[in-house]
Protein backbone atom coordinates (compact mmCIF):
# COMPACT_ATOMS: atom_id res chain seq x y z
CA UNK A 1 0.00 0.00 0.00
CA UNK A 2 2.77 2.45 0.91
CA UNK A 3 4.39 1.59 -2.40
CA UNK A 4 1.27 2.42 -4.40
CA UNK A 5 0.82 5.60 -2.36
CA UNK A 6 4.36 6.63 -3.26
CA UNK A 7 3.65 5.86 -6.92
CA UNK A 8 0.47 7.92 -6.88
CA UNK A 9 2.24 10.87 -5.25
CA UNK A 10 5.04 10.67 -7.79
CA UNK A 11 2.48 10.68 -10.59
CA UNK A 12 0.84 13.74 -9.03
CA UNK A 13 4.14 15.62 -8.96
CA UNK A 14 4.93 14.74 -12.57
CA UNK A 15 1.53 16.00 -13.71
CA UNK A 16 1.96 19.24 -11.80
CA UNK A 17 5.45 19.85 -13.18
CA UNK A 18 4.20 19.15 -16.70
CA UNK A 19 1.31 21.55 -16.27
CA UNK A 20 3.60 24.28 -14.99
CA UNK A 21 5.89 23.90 -17.96
CA UNK A 22 3.12 23.72 -20.54
CA UNK A 23 1.20 26.77 -19.27
CA UNK A 24 4.35 28.79 -19.25
CA UNK A 25 5.43 27.65 -22.70
CA UNK A 26 1.99 28.20 -24.24
CA UNK A 27 1.57 31.68 -22.84
CA UNK A 28 5.12 32.58 -23.80
CA UNK A 29 4.46 31.62 -27.37
CA UNK A 30 0.95 33.09 -27.60
CA UNK A 31 0.47 35.36 -30.62
CA UNK A 32 0.64 39.15 -30.18
CA UNK A 33 3.03 41.19 -28.09
CA UNK A 34 2.33 40.59 -24.41
CA UNK A 35 4.26 43.69 -23.38
CA UNK A 36 1.96 45.88 -25.47
CA UNK A 37 -1.12 44.26 -23.94
CA UNK A 38 0.18 44.78 -20.42
CA UNK A 39 1.11 48.38 -21.09
CA UNK A 40 -2.33 48.98 -22.50
CA UNK A 41 -4.00 47.49 -19.43
CA UNK A 42 -1.85 49.66 -17.20
CA UNK A 43 -2.14 52.99 -18.91
CA UNK A 44 -5.31 52.52 -20.86
CA UNK A 45 -4.25 54.30 -24.05
CA UNK A 46 -2.25 53.83 -27.20
CA UNK A 47 1.37 53.98 -26.27
CA UNK A 48 4.72 54.70 -27.78
CA UNK A 49 7.22 51.91 -28.46
CA UNK A 50 9.42 53.33 -25.70
CA UNK A 51 6.87 52.77 -22.96
CA UNK A 52 6.15 49.28 -24.24
CA UNK A 53 9.86 48.41 -24.15
CA UNK A 54 10.08 49.79 -20.64
CA UNK A 55 7.21 47.54 -19.56
CA UNK A 56 8.86 44.59 -21.30
CA UNK A 57 12.02 45.04 -19.27
CA UNK A 58 10.18 45.64 -16.02
CA UNK A 59 8.04 42.52 -16.29
CA UNK A 60 10.98 40.38 -17.37
CA UNK A 61 9.81 39.68 -20.90
CA UNK A 62 13.11 40.78 -22.41
CA UNK A 63 15.02 37.64 -21.43
CA UNK A 64 14.86 34.35 -23.34
CA UNK A 65 12.50 31.44 -22.49
CA UNK A 66 14.54 29.31 -20.08
CA UNK A 67 15.85 32.06 -17.77
CA UNK A 68 12.32 33.47 -17.58
CA UNK A 69 10.89 29.98 -16.83
CA UNK A 70 13.37 29.28 -14.03
CA UNK A 71 12.96 32.67 -12.44
CA UNK A 72 9.19 32.04 -12.39
CA UNK A 73 9.42 28.44 -11.17
CA UNK A 74 11.86 29.11 -8.31
CA UNK A 75 9.60 31.26 -6.13
CA UNK A 76 6.60 29.17 -7.20
CA UNK A 77 7.97 26.23 -5.20
CA UNK A 78 7.56 28.37 -2.07
CA UNK A 79 3.97 29.19 -3.14
CA UNK A 80 5.00 32.64 -4.37
CA UNK A 81 3.11 33.29 -7.61
CA UNK A 82 4.95 36.61 -8.20
CA UNK A 83 3.33 39.97 -8.80
CA UNK A 84 0.61 40.91 -11.20
CA UNK A 85 2.04 42.37 -14.41
CA UNK A 86 -0.75 44.91 -14.54
CA UNK A 87 -1.31 46.14 -11.00
CA UNK A 88 2.08 45.18 -9.61
CA UNK A 89 0.45 43.70 -6.54
CA UNK A 90 1.29 40.14 -5.41
CA UNK A 91 -0.91 37.55 -7.13
CA UNK A 92 -1.55 35.27 -4.16
CA UNK A 93 -3.79 37.53 -1.97
CA UNK A 94 -6.02 38.39 -4.94
CA UNK A 95 -6.15 34.77 -6.01
CA UNK A 96 -6.97 33.68 -2.48
CA UNK A 97 -9.73 36.27 -2.37
CA UNK A 98 -11.22 34.87 -5.59
CA UNK A 99 -10.98 31.32 -4.21
CA UNK A 100 -12.95 32.25 -1.10
CA UNK A 101 -15.84 33.08 -3.42
CA UNK A 102 -15.57 30.23 -5.92
CA UNK A 103 -14.76 27.21 -3.75
CA UNK A 104 -17.71 27.57 -1.37
CA UNK A 105 -19.94 28.14 -4.40
CA UNK A 106 -18.63 25.01 -6.12
CA UNK A 107 -18.97 23.02 -2.90
CA UNK A 108 -22.53 24.22 -2.39
CA UNK A 109 -23.28 23.30 -6.01
CA UNK A 110 -21.88 19.81 -5.48
CA UNK A 111 -23.91 19.29 -2.32
CA UNK A 112 -27.10 20.50 -3.98
CA UNK A 113 -26.32 18.20 -6.92
CA UNK A 114 -25.81 15.18 -4.66
CA UNK A 115 -28.81 16.13 -2.52
CA UNK A 116 -31.06 16.13 -5.57
CA UNK A 117 -29.45 13.28 -7.50
CA UNK A 118 -29.19 10.65 -4.76
CA UNK A 119 -32.87 10.45 -3.77
CA UNK A 120 -33.98 10.89 -7.38
CA UNK A 121 -31.69 8.07 -8.55
CA UNK A 122 -32.73 5.73 -5.74
CA UNK A 123 -36.36 6.49 -6.50
CA UNK A 124 -35.83 5.85 -10.21
CA UNK A 125 -33.90 2.63 -9.67
CA UNK A 126 -36.56 1.20 -7.37
CA UNK A 127 -38.71 0.15 -10.30
CA UNK A 128 -36.63 0.37 -13.48
CA UNK A 129 -38.64 0.86 -16.65
CA UNK A 130 -41.78 1.93 -14.81
CA UNK A 131 -43.37 5.37 -15.06
CA UNK A 132 -41.63 6.67 -11.92
CA UNK A 133 -38.28 5.71 -13.42
CA UNK A 134 -39.06 7.28 -16.79
CA UNK A 135 -40.15 10.54 -15.21
CA UNK A 136 -37.00 10.71 -13.08
CA UNK A 137 -34.80 9.96 -16.08
CA UNK A 138 -36.66 12.55 -18.15
CA UNK A 139 -36.11 15.20 -15.47
CA UNK A 140 -32.42 14.31 -15.37
CA UNK A 141 -32.10 14.46 -19.16
CA UNK A 142 -33.86 17.79 -19.24
CA UNK A 143 -31.45 19.09 -16.60
CA UNK A 144 -28.49 17.96 -18.66
CA UNK A 145 -29.87 19.53 -21.83
CA UNK A 146 -30.49 22.99 -20.34
CA UNK A 147 -27.37 25.18 -20.55
CA UNK A 148 -26.27 26.85 -17.30
CA UNK A 149 -26.58 30.42 -18.63
CA UNK A 150 -30.20 29.86 -19.62
CA UNK A 151 -31.09 28.13 -16.35
CA UNK A 152 -29.37 30.96 -14.48
CA UNK A 153 -31.41 33.61 -16.29
CA UNK A 154 -34.58 31.59 -15.73
CA UNK A 155 -33.92 31.40 -11.99
CA UNK A 156 -33.19 35.13 -11.84
CA UNK A 157 -36.42 35.84 -13.68
CA UNK A 158 -38.46 33.65 -11.38
CA UNK A 159 -36.98 34.17 -7.91
CA UNK A 160 -35.49 37.66 -8.21
CA UNK A 161 -37.72 39.49 -10.67
CA UNK A 162 -41.15 37.85 -10.36
CA UNK A 163 -41.19 36.69 -6.77
CA UNK A 164 -38.55 39.03 -5.41
CA UNK A 165 -37.45 36.44 -2.86
CA UNK A 166 -33.75 36.39 -3.57
CA UNK A 167 -31.10 38.86 -4.73
CA UNK A 168 -29.79 38.29 -8.24
CA UNK A 169 -26.56 40.17 -8.68
CA UNK A 170 -23.40 40.49 -6.61
CA UNK A 171 -22.11 38.60 -3.62
CA UNK A 172 -22.66 40.73 -0.59
CA UNK A 173 -24.65 38.34 1.58
CA UNK A 174 -24.85 34.53 1.76
CA UNK A 175 -28.34 34.83 0.24
CA UNK A 176 -26.63 36.09 -2.90
CA UNK A 177 -25.04 32.67 -3.30
CA UNK A 178 -28.32 30.73 -3.36
CA UNK A 179 -29.29 31.25 -7.00
CA UNK A 180 -25.77 30.70 -8.40
CA UNK A 181 -25.38 27.56 -6.30
CA UNK A 182 -28.76 26.27 -7.52
CA UNK A 183 -27.81 26.91 -11.14
CA UNK A 184 -24.59 25.01 -10.67
CA UNK A 185 -26.14 22.26 -8.55
CA UNK A 186 -29.02 21.41 -10.87
CA UNK A 187 -26.59 20.94 -13.77
CA UNK A 188 -24.52 18.57 -11.63
CA UNK A 189 -27.63 16.77 -10.39
CA UNK A 190 -28.68 15.94 -13.93
CA UNK A 191 -25.62 13.93 -14.84
CA UNK A 192 -25.15 12.50 -11.34
CA UNK A 193 -28.70 11.14 -11.31
CA UNK A 194 -28.13 9.11 -14.42
CA UNK A 195 -24.79 7.78 -13.22
CA UNK A 196 -26.05 6.84 -9.77
CA UNK A 197 -29.16 5.23 -11.22
CA UNK A 198 -27.24 3.06 -13.66
CA UNK A 199 -24.69 2.32 -10.93
CA UNK A 200 -27.45 1.00 -8.68
CA UNK A 201 -29.04 -1.01 -11.48
CA UNK A 202 -25.72 -2.56 -12.41
CA UNK A 203 -24.99 -3.36 -8.79
CA UNK A 204 -28.41 -4.99 -8.48
CA UNK A 205 -27.50 -7.36 -11.30
CA UNK A 206 -24.52 -8.76 -9.41
CA UNK A 207 -24.55 -12.55 -9.47
CA UNK A 208 -24.16 -12.99 -5.73
CA UNK A 209 -27.23 -10.97 -4.69
CA UNK A 210 -29.92 -13.69 -5.00
CA UNK A 211 -27.91 -15.96 -2.71
CA UNK A 212 -27.54 -13.22 -0.12
CA UNK A 213 -31.27 -12.51 -0.25
CA UNK A 214 -31.97 -16.21 0.15
CA UNK A 215 -29.66 -16.23 3.17
CA UNK A 216 -32.28 -14.06 4.82
CA UNK A 217 -30.40 -10.76 4.94
CA UNK A 218 -32.91 -7.87 5.12
CA UNK A 219 -33.32 -5.67 2.03
CA UNK A 220 -32.13 -2.51 3.79
CA UNK A 221 -28.89 -4.20 4.85
CA UNK A 222 -28.33 -5.52 1.32
CA UNK A 223 -28.74 -2.02 -0.07
CA UNK A 224 -26.32 -0.56 2.44
CA UNK A 225 -23.69 -3.29 2.55
CA UNK A 226 -23.68 -4.71 -0.98
CA UNK A 227 -25.41 -2.49 -3.51
CA UNK A 228 -24.04 0.84 -2.27
CA UNK A 229 -20.33 -0.12 -2.49
CA UNK A 230 -20.76 -1.60 -5.99
CA UNK A 231 -22.76 1.39 -7.17
CA UNK A 232 -20.19 3.77 -5.67
CA UNK A 233 -17.39 2.70 -8.01
CA UNK A 234 -18.75 4.22 -11.25
CA UNK A 235 -20.07 7.22 -9.30
CA UNK A 236 -16.64 7.97 -7.86
CA UNK A 237 -15.16 7.75 -11.36
CA UNK A 238 -17.57 10.35 -12.62
CA UNK A 239 -16.95 12.60 -9.64
CA UNK A 240 -13.55 13.54 -11.06
CA UNK A 241 -15.17 14.64 -14.32
CA UNK A 242 -17.94 16.35 -12.41
CA UNK A 243 -15.33 18.53 -10.76
CA UNK A 244 -14.18 19.79 -14.15
CA UNK A 245 -17.78 20.60 -14.97
CA UNK A 246 -18.14 22.45 -11.67
CA UNK A 247 -15.12 24.72 -12.17
CA UNK A 248 -16.12 25.40 -15.76
CA UNK A 249 -19.68 26.06 -14.68
CA UNK A 250 -18.54 28.32 -11.84
CA UNK A 251 -16.78 30.62 -14.33
CA UNK A 252 -19.96 30.96 -16.36
CA UNK A 253 -22.23 31.34 -13.34
CA UNK A 254 -20.02 34.05 -11.85
CA UNK A 255 -20.28 36.06 -15.01
CA UNK A 256 -24.08 35.64 -15.18
CA UNK A 257 -24.62 36.64 -11.55
CA UNK A 258 -21.93 39.32 -11.49
CA UNK A 259 -20.06 37.57 -8.70
CA UNK A 260 -16.36 38.00 -8.01
CA UNK A 261 -14.36 34.76 -8.04
CA UNK A 262 -11.96 32.66 -10.06
CA UNK A 263 -13.99 33.06 -13.23
CA UNK A 264 -13.99 36.83 -13.18
CA UNK A 265 -10.36 36.77 -12.06
CA UNK A 266 -9.34 34.54 -14.97
CA UNK A 267 -11.30 36.43 -17.60
CA UNK A 268 -9.78 39.79 -16.71
CA UNK A 269 -6.29 38.30 -16.39
CA UNK A 270 -6.47 36.77 -19.87
CA UNK A 271 -7.75 39.98 -21.40
CA UNK A 272 -4.86 41.90 -19.87
CA UNK A 273 -2.28 39.24 -20.74
CA UNK A 274 -1.40 39.18 -17.08
CA UNK A 275 0.99 36.22 -17.24
CA UNK A 276 1.52 35.61 -13.53
CA UNK A 277 -2.20 35.72 -12.80
CA UNK A 278 -3.18 33.36 -15.63
CA UNK A 279 -0.47 30.93 -14.72
CA UNK A 280 -1.52 31.00 -11.11
CA UNK A 281 -5.13 30.14 -11.98
CA UNK A 282 -4.13 27.36 -14.35
CA UNK A 283 -1.74 25.85 -11.83
CA UNK A 284 -4.32 26.06 -9.09
CA UNK A 285 -6.88 24.32 -11.28
CA UNK A 286 -4.37 21.62 -12.13
CA UNK A 287 -3.58 21.19 -8.44
CA UNK A 288 -7.27 20.80 -7.58
CA UNK A 289 -7.68 18.18 -10.30
CA UNK A 290 -4.58 16.22 -9.48
CA UNK A 291 -5.34 16.14 -5.77
CA UNK A 292 -8.96 15.14 -6.31
CA UNK A 293 -7.88 12.40 -8.69
CA UNK A 294 -5.39 11.24 -6.08
CA UNK A 295 -8.21 11.03 -3.55
CA UNK A 296 -10.41 9.17 -6.04
CA UNK A 297 -7.63 6.67 -6.72
CA UNK A 298 -7.20 6.06 -3.02
CA UNK A 299 -10.97 5.68 -2.55
CA UNK A 300 -11.09 3.09 -5.35
CA UNK A 301 -8.41 1.06 -3.68
CA UNK A 302 -10.21 1.30 -0.38
CA UNK A 303 -13.48 -0.01 -1.86
CA UNK A 304 -11.98 -2.58 -4.23
CA UNK A 305 -8.32 -3.47 -3.61
CA UNK A 306 -8.32 -5.55 -6.81
CA UNK A 307 -8.03 -2.26 -8.73
CA UNK A 308 -4.63 -1.61 -7.16
CA UNK A 309 -3.49 -5.18 -7.71
CA UNK A 310 -4.37 -5.15 -11.39
CA UNK A 311 -2.23 -2.06 -11.89
CA UNK A 312 0.78 -3.65 -10.23
Amino acid at each position, binding site marked *: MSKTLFGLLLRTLVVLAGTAFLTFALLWNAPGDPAAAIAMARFDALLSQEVIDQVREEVGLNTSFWPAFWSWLGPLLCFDFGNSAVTGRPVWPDLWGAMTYTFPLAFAGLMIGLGVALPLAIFAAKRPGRLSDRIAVAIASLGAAIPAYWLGLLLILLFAVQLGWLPAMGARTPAHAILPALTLGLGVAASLTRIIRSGILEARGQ*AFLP*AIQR*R*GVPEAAIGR*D*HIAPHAAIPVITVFGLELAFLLEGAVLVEVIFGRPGLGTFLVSAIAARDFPQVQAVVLLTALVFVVSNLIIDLLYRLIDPRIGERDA
Partner: protein
Amino acid sequence: MVSGSTVTKLALRVSDLSAMRSGRTILYPTSLNIAPAERIGIVGSSGSGKSTFGHALIDDLRRQGHSVAQVPQSPDEALDPLRSMAFHWQEAERALGLKPGTADREALFATLKIEKGDMRKRPWGWSRGMQQRFVIAMALIGAPDLIVLDEPTSALDPVVAAATMQLLDQHLTEQNIAMVLITHDLGLASKWVSKLAVMQDGHLVEEAATQDILNTPQTKAAQSLVAHRNWMALPC
Protein backbone atom coordinates in the same frame (compact mmCIF):
# COMPACT_ATOMS: atom_id res chain seq x y z
CA MET B 1 -40.46 -33.52 19.34
CA VAL B 2 -37.75 -34.87 21.60
CA SER B 3 -36.85 -38.52 21.70
CA GLY B 4 -34.12 -39.52 24.08
CA SER B 5 -31.40 -36.90 24.03
CA THR B 6 -31.33 -36.11 20.31
CA VAL B 7 -33.71 -33.67 18.67
CA THR B 8 -35.69 -35.34 15.92
CA LYS B 9 -36.22 -33.04 12.99
CA LEU B 10 -39.54 -32.69 11.27
CA ALA B 11 -40.27 -34.04 7.83
CA LEU B 12 -40.35 -31.30 5.21
CA ARG B 13 -43.04 -31.04 2.60
CA VAL B 14 -43.65 -28.70 -0.30
CA SER B 15 -46.74 -29.02 -2.44
CA ASP B 16 -47.81 -27.66 -5.80
CA LEU B 17 -44.94 -25.27 -6.34
CA SER B 18 -44.96 -23.66 -9.77
CA ALA B 19 -43.14 -20.86 -11.55
CA MET B 20 -43.57 -18.67 -14.61
CA ARG B 21 -41.03 -16.63 -16.50
CA SER B 22 -42.06 -14.01 -19.06
CA GLY B 23 -45.49 -15.56 -19.50
CA ARG B 24 -44.22 -19.12 -19.93
CA THR B 25 -44.63 -21.83 -17.32
CA ILE B 26 -41.17 -23.13 -16.41
CA LEU B 27 -42.31 -25.20 -13.43
CA TYR B 28 -45.64 -27.02 -13.30
CA PRO B 29 -47.20 -27.76 -9.90
CA THR B 30 -44.67 -29.98 -8.17
CA SER B 31 -44.62 -31.54 -4.70
CA LEU B 32 -41.88 -33.23 -2.74
CA ASN B 33 -41.52 -34.85 0.68
CA ILE B 34 -38.19 -34.81 2.45
CA ALA B 35 -37.84 -37.10 5.45
CA PRO B 36 -35.60 -35.95 8.31
CA ALA B 37 -31.92 -36.16 7.31
CA GLU B 38 -32.88 -37.59 3.92
CA ARG B 39 -30.67 -37.09 0.85
CA ILE B 40 -32.50 -36.29 -2.32
CA GLY B 41 -31.12 -35.61 -5.77
CA ILE B 42 -33.07 -33.43 -8.22
CA VAL B 43 -31.71 -34.39 -11.62
CA GLY B 44 -32.50 -33.39 -15.18
CA SER B 45 -30.92 -31.99 -18.32
CA SER B 46 -30.39 -28.26 -18.76
CA GLY B 47 -33.67 -26.38 -18.99
CA SER B 48 -35.61 -29.13 -17.22
CA GLY B 49 -36.58 -26.75 -14.40
CA LYS B 50 -34.51 -28.36 -11.65
CA SER B 51 -32.86 -25.13 -10.44
CA THR B 52 -36.19 -23.28 -10.57
CA PHE B 53 -37.72 -26.04 -8.46
CA GLY B 54 -34.79 -25.82 -6.06
CA HIS B 55 -35.27 -22.08 -5.57
CA ALA B 56 -39.04 -22.39 -5.16
CA LEU B 57 -38.48 -25.16 -2.64
CA ILE B 58 -36.14 -23.02 -0.55
CA ASP B 59 -38.50 -20.04 -0.58
CA ASP B 60 -41.54 -22.15 0.31
CA LEU B 61 -39.86 -24.03 3.18
CA ARG B 62 -38.60 -20.70 4.51
CA ARG B 63 -42.14 -19.38 4.49
CA GLN B 64 -43.19 -22.44 6.47
CA GLY B 65 -40.62 -21.45 9.08
CA HIS B 66 -38.00 -24.10 8.41
CA SER B 67 -34.33 -23.19 8.30
CA VAL B 68 -33.01 -23.92 4.84
CA ALA B 69 -29.54 -23.08 3.58
CA GLN B 70 -28.46 -22.75 -0.02
CA VAL B 71 -25.11 -23.30 -1.72
CA PRO B 72 -25.07 -21.91 -5.28
CA GLN B 73 -23.14 -23.39 -8.17
CA SER B 74 -20.10 -21.16 -7.89
CA PRO B 75 -18.70 -19.04 -5.05
CA ASP B 76 -19.08 -16.01 -7.35
CA GLU B 77 -22.82 -16.44 -6.90
CA ALA B 78 -22.55 -16.48 -3.11
CA LEU B 79 -19.91 -13.96 -2.07
CA ASP B 80 -19.59 -10.20 -2.58
CA PRO B 81 -16.07 -9.53 -3.91
CA LEU B 82 -15.97 -6.19 -2.08
CA ARG B 83 -16.67 -7.66 1.35
CA SER B 84 -14.35 -9.58 3.65
CA MET B 85 -14.93 -13.18 4.66
CA ALA B 86 -15.45 -11.98 8.24
CA PHE B 87 -18.20 -9.65 7.04
CA HIS B 88 -19.97 -12.46 5.16
CA TRP B 89 -19.77 -14.68 8.20
CA GLN B 90 -21.22 -12.08 10.56
CA GLU B 91 -23.91 -11.19 8.07
CA ALA B 92 -24.97 -14.83 7.88
CA GLU B 93 -25.06 -15.02 11.68
CA ARG B 94 -27.16 -11.88 11.95
CA ALA B 95 -29.56 -13.15 9.28
CA LEU B 96 -30.20 -16.19 11.48
CA GLY B 97 -30.77 -13.97 14.49
CA LEU B 98 -27.52 -15.01 16.14
CA LYS B 99 -25.15 -12.60 17.85
CA PRO B 100 -21.93 -12.17 15.85
CA GLY B 101 -19.30 -14.64 16.97
CA THR B 102 -21.74 -17.13 18.51
CA ALA B 103 -21.74 -19.68 15.68
CA ASP B 104 -19.14 -22.35 16.16
CA ARG B 105 -16.86 -21.18 13.40
CA GLU B 106 -13.80 -23.12 14.54
CA ALA B 107 -15.65 -26.43 14.44
CA LEU B 108 -17.22 -25.81 11.03
CA PHE B 109 -13.95 -24.59 9.56
CA ALA B 110 -12.16 -27.61 10.99
CA THR B 111 -14.82 -29.91 9.51
CA LEU B 112 -14.30 -28.44 6.05
CA LYS B 113 -10.53 -28.01 6.53
CA ILE B 114 -10.38 -24.26 5.93
CA GLU B 115 -9.00 -23.19 9.33
CA LYS B 116 -6.04 -21.54 7.64
CA GLY B 117 -8.14 -19.04 5.66
CA ASP B 118 -7.59 -15.38 6.54
CA MET B 119 -10.98 -13.92 7.47
CA ARG B 120 -9.80 -10.35 6.86
CA LYS B 121 -9.31 -11.13 3.18
CA ARG B 122 -11.96 -10.72 0.55
CA PRO B 123 -13.20 -13.79 -1.35
CA TRP B 124 -10.70 -13.49 -4.17
CA GLY B 125 -7.89 -13.68 -1.61
CA TRP B 126 -8.89 -17.33 -1.15
CA SER B 127 -8.65 -20.18 -3.67
CA ARG B 128 -11.93 -21.13 -5.34
CA GLY B 129 -12.02 -24.46 -3.58
CA MET B 130 -11.68 -22.73 -0.21
CA GLN B 131 -14.30 -20.13 -1.16
CA GLN B 132 -16.77 -22.89 -2.00
CA ARG B 133 -16.07 -24.62 1.32
CA PHE B 134 -16.52 -21.32 3.12
CA VAL B 135 -19.93 -20.94 1.48
CA ILE B 136 -20.84 -24.45 2.62
CA ALA B 137 -19.62 -23.67 6.14
CA MET B 138 -21.77 -20.53 6.13
CA ALA B 139 -24.75 -22.61 5.04
CA LEU B 140 -24.22 -24.94 7.98
CA ILE B 141 -24.32 -22.21 10.64
CA GLY B 142 -26.99 -23.04 13.20
CA ALA B 143 -27.51 -26.58 11.82
CA PRO B 144 -30.34 -25.96 9.32
CA ASP B 145 -33.10 -28.50 8.68
CA LEU B 146 -32.02 -28.74 5.05
CA ILE B 147 -29.13 -27.73 2.84
CA VAL B 148 -29.72 -27.27 -0.90
CA LEU B 149 -26.69 -27.63 -3.15
CA ASP B 150 -26.90 -26.50 -6.80
CA GLU B 151 -24.17 -28.19 -8.88
CA PRO B 152 -21.76 -27.84 -5.96
CA THR B 153 -18.81 -29.49 -7.70
CA SER B 154 -18.89 -27.96 -11.16
CA ALA B 155 -16.76 -24.93 -10.24
CA LEU B 156 -14.15 -27.05 -8.49
CA ASP B 157 -11.28 -29.22 -9.56
CA PRO B 158 -12.19 -32.91 -9.17
CA VAL B 159 -9.84 -33.70 -6.30
CA VAL B 160 -11.06 -30.73 -4.26
CA ALA B 161 -14.67 -31.40 -5.23
CA ALA B 162 -14.54 -35.03 -4.08
CA ALA B 163 -12.89 -34.10 -0.79
CA THR B 164 -15.47 -31.36 -0.17
CA MET B 165 -18.37 -33.74 -0.80
CA GLN B 166 -16.87 -36.29 1.57
CA LEU B 167 -16.41 -33.74 4.37
CA LEU B 168 -19.91 -32.39 3.87
CA ASP B 169 -21.42 -35.86 3.80
CA GLN B 170 -19.85 -36.72 7.13
CA HIS B 171 -21.02 -33.51 8.75
CA LEU B 172 -24.61 -33.89 7.52
CA THR B 173 -24.77 -37.41 8.91
CA GLU B 174 -23.49 -36.29 12.31
CA GLN B 175 -25.88 -33.35 12.49
CA ASN B 176 -28.96 -35.03 11.00
CA ILE B 177 -29.28 -32.42 8.28
CA ALA B 178 -31.28 -33.23 5.14
CA MET B 179 -29.75 -32.50 1.73
CA VAL B 180 -31.10 -31.70 -1.71
CA LEU B 181 -28.53 -32.02 -4.49
CA ILE B 182 -29.47 -30.35 -7.77
CA THR B 183 -27.45 -31.58 -10.74
CA HIS B 184 -27.54 -32.57 -14.40
CA ASP B 185 -25.15 -35.39 -13.60
CA LEU B 186 -26.91 -38.53 -12.44
CA GLY B 187 -23.53 -40.17 -11.94
CA LEU B 188 -22.67 -37.55 -9.31
CA ALA B 189 -26.10 -37.62 -7.67
CA SER B 190 -26.23 -41.41 -7.39
CA LYS B 191 -23.05 -41.41 -5.32
CA TRP B 192 -24.43 -39.11 -2.63
CA VAL B 193 -28.22 -39.42 -2.40
CA SER B 194 -30.67 -42.16 -1.47
CA LYS B 195 -33.64 -40.86 -3.44
CA LEU B 196 -33.88 -39.29 -6.88
CA ALA B 197 -36.40 -36.90 -8.39
CA VAL B 198 -36.13 -36.68 -12.17
CA MET B 199 -37.21 -33.44 -13.85
CA GLN B 200 -38.11 -32.84 -17.48
CA ASP B 201 -39.63 -29.76 -19.14
CA GLY B 202 -40.79 -28.31 -15.83
CA HIS B 203 -42.39 -31.53 -14.58
CA LEU B 204 -41.24 -33.94 -11.91
CA VAL B 205 -41.60 -37.09 -14.00
CA GLU B 206 -40.18 -39.79 -11.77
CA GLU B 207 -39.37 -40.17 -8.11
CA ALA B 208 -37.87 -43.28 -6.56
CA ALA B 209 -35.01 -44.70 -4.53
CA THR B 210 -31.65 -44.19 -6.25
CA GLN B 211 -31.02 -47.89 -6.77
CA ASP B 212 -34.47 -48.42 -8.27
CA ILE B 213 -33.96 -45.67 -10.80
CA LEU B 214 -30.51 -46.93 -11.70
CA ASN B 215 -31.81 -50.47 -12.17
CA THR B 216 -35.24 -49.88 -13.64
CA PRO B 217 -35.80 -46.35 -14.87
CA GLN B 218 -39.43 -45.93 -15.94
CA THR B 219 -39.57 -42.72 -17.98
CA LYS B 220 -37.63 -41.71 -21.08
CA ALA B 221 -35.92 -38.87 -19.19
CA ALA B 222 -34.73 -41.20 -16.45
CA GLN B 223 -33.63 -43.83 -18.96
CA SER B 224 -31.56 -41.25 -20.83
CA LEU B 225 -29.94 -39.98 -17.63
CA VAL B 226 -29.17 -43.53 -16.50
CA ALA B 227 -27.70 -44.48 -19.86
CA HIS B 228 -25.47 -41.40 -19.80
CA ARG B 229 -24.68 -41.44 -16.09
CA ASN B 230 -21.01 -42.13 -16.54
CA TRP B 231 -18.57 -42.47 -19.35
CA MET B 232 -17.97 -46.18 -18.91
CA ALA B 233 -21.65 -47.13 -18.86
CA LEU B 234 -21.95 -46.26 -22.54
CA PRO B 235 -21.44 -48.82 -25.26
CA CYS B 236 -18.14 -47.42 -26.55
